């Protein structure tokens, strides 16, 4: 199986989520190879899990004030603040038959590629079921998977820097006022690449892609016109719509 790798790109939240779906559909139709992509979000955005309520999780007014987008993912899991400079996101999209039926096992396999990537910049991480990667017990990466129509999509974030204040402003983590105590509590549970390795984002991406592709046949590729057109269509007709984002 030959993988396609799409190197670091930056899109808005809606196109990022739409690309994952468009590529899944295209793989299902037999038109695209299994794909690994790494990307950033601009503007910064909040994504919520498929089963979460937008209004319960996200401070919409603050997002509007700060120009932060908000989008519902097609994967479960929790709300994530995607700072445009503070993290790298990846997606692995492939026929489901290439992975174990057991979902946690398949999380472990894909997360091991990220653990491998981080080891290349001397960060010693490990998989923490259900869907996290941790360094010294602190979360550095969250991941979410869906399987639809025979394709597997797993996407996740690797924290590079962490803007805890903005994160607290846009996520309704608590009704309490943002306090130093809360920020300390997050810093006790969550960490970031810069705490362990003084590397650029480019270097991090390079290391991650080495981890993702190790032992695989692959080529660097790009989106087909059909994939990009479908993604643009999905961004407008699904991911940008109130109907999708506020359905719960």
């Amino acid at each position, binding site marked *: 199986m030959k993988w396609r790798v799409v190197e670091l790109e930056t899109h808005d939240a809606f196109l990022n989520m739409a690309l994952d779906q468009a590529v899944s559909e295209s793989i299902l139709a037999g038109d695209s190879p299994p794909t690994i992509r790494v990307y950033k979000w601009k503007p910064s955005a909040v994504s919520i*899990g*498929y*089963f*979460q*309520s937008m209004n*319960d999780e996200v401070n919409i007014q603050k997002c509007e004030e700060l120009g932060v987008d908000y989008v519902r993912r*097609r*994967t*479960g*899991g*929790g*709300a994530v603040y995607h700072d445009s400079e503070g993290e790298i996101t990846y997606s692995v999209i492939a026929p489901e038959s290439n992975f174990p039926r057991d*979902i*946690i096992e398949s999380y472990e396999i894909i997360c091991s590629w990220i653990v491998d990537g981080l080891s290349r910049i001397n960060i010693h991480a490990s998989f923490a079921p*259900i*869907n996290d990667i941790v360094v010294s017990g602190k979360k550095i990466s969250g991941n*979410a*998977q*869906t*399987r*639809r129509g025979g394709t597997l999509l797993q996407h996740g974030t690797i924290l590079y820097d962490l803007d805890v204040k903005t994160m607290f402003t846009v996520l309704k983590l608590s009704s309490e006022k943002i306090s130093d105590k809360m920020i300390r509590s997050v810093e006790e549970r969550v960490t970031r690449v810069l705490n362990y390795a003084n590397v650029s984002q480019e270097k991090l991406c390079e290391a991650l892609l080495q981890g993702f592709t190790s032992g695989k046949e692959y080529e660097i590729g790009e989106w087909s016109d059909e994939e990009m057109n479908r993604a643009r269509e999905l961004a407008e007709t699904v991911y940008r719509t109130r109907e999708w984002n506020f359905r*719960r």
Partner: protein
Amino acid sequence: MKGFAKQKVPGGKLLAVKLDYSDVIEKIEILGDFFLHPEDLLQKIEKSLVGIHVDESEQAIAEKLKRVVETNSIELIGITPEAIAQTIKMAVKK
């Protein structure tokens, strides 16, 4: 009446239930940061709970949920039928 309850499932994920109810559950939403495959079948689970008497035991609700989960080959990750049933009872009590 409206009911709401939320809990962190031990060893699992956050699970919340929003209810409209009288003697029976009239409307229910199950929310949280859990995983459920295939995702669209959460609606089937929710529908199966509409009409259930709110005095039904937690165990009976869990059994019903288990049947729906098994019949439809639904995979729950981070939540269980028992946890959903427990959260429903919490939401009704409040």
